[in-house]
């Protein structure tokens, strides 16, 4: 009998389309959690806006939307009787993964998502950065591009697959990296929605500030093991704070995480979110694994 991993994706790249006839709108979990989130943050997922908006804050809104949708899909799965053996997460998917594992409450997960999102908005206006997805080049080729553009502080932010990497760094450098990647026969090289160099070491400077944000949060032992993609071991309760304080300043090792889960007997991966990015990455890492996304399933 195989094992099941629930996988929590990172930030959406586009506003989720939840038009009037969307099936989620009738879902009781959706109604409940969207209302709770509005009460706490004044963010309305249905029209993708805060009650009062002075500036765009596009990425912050995407981050809260991602968290909320993952939690709604998680509660739907649990109501339908699904029990995960492991939880995995990609980038800012950690907040929903921790709430799903009951290491933190839904409200605390939302608070962390919003607080770190606001920190990133601030950083984006102070020291603008960018990110880009490079598909179809090997790790060596991507590393070579980073070395060639030394001075722009480019980092490999995500190790998503043997031919799929995300770069992070100064905006001009990221644009140059996109052009270079295309000239070196990448199948695709495109800028992502971010206005910061997320997962680059420059964000380790926010560590103390993040620890301060987390000081009143009560962390419990995760009810379902949450895989730490740096060590590929389950996160222990006492490690969570430190993980969160460094998470945005260190890369995401997704390949390593999926490979470890397969070693542990996982043969079913459920992407707990609105899109199917992780599902496609898992398909690339191991074609034998059964992977699907709750978002796709809903629309079928």
């Amino acid at each position, binding site marked *: 009998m195989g094992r099941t991993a629930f996988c929590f994706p990172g930030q959406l790249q586009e506003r989720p389309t939840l038009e009037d006839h969307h099936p989620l709108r009738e879902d009781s979990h959706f109604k409940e959690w969207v209302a709770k989130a509005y009460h706490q943050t004044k963010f309305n997922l249905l029209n993708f806006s805060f009650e009062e908006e002075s500036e765009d804050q596009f990425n912050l809104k995407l981050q809260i939307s991602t968290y909320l949708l993952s939690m709604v899909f998680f509660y739907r799965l649990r109501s339908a009787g699904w029990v995960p053996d492991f939880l995995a997460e990609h980038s800012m998917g950690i907040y929903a993964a921790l709430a799903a594992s009951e290491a933190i409450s839904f409200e605390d997960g939302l608070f962390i998502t919003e607080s770190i999102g606001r920190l990133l908005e601030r950083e984006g206006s102070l020291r603008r950065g960018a990110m880009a997805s490079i598909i179809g080049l090997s790790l060596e080729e991507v590393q070579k591009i980073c070395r060639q553009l030394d001075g722009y502080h480019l980092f490999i932010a995500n190790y998503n697959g043997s031919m799929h990497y995300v770069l992070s760094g100064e905006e001009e450098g990221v644009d140059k990296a996109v052009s270079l990647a295309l000239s070196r026969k990448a199948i695709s090289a495109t800028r992502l929605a971010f206005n910061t160099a997320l997962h680059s070491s420059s964000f380790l400077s926010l560590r103390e500030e993040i620890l301060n944000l987390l000081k009143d949060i009560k962390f419990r032992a995760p009810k379902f093991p949450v895989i730490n993609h740096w060590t590929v071991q389950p996160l222990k309760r006492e490690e969570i704070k430190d993980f969160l304080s460094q998470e945005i300043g260190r890369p995401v090792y997704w390949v390593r995480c999926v490979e470890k889960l397969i070693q542990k007997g996982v043969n079913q991966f459920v992407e707990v979110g609105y899109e199917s990015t992780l599902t*496609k990455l898992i398909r690339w890492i191991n074609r034998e694994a059964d992977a699907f996304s709750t978002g796709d399933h809903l629309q079928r």
Partner: protein
Amino acid sequence: MVEPNDHLIEKIKYLIIQRLKLVEMTPEMIETEAPLFGEGLGLDSIDALELVLGLEKEFGVVIPDAEVGKKVFQSVRTMAQFVLEQQGKV
């Protein structure tokens, strides 16, 4: 312009379904002329990488870069045309 026959069109549709693990789809559900990306079949750049690999394995044809990929992956018909053109060069 070489025109692919129905057999090749069908094979390309199978390739798309198999490579992208579109388990609930059948070749009849994929329109030959419809866009593969965005509004059409809704594929993205991660899917493109799978299709590049699939075309190479199944037909021995290589998509050299993003520019060619953009032209080839417009529809099932353009994929089939590319296969015919490349095989004709051998």
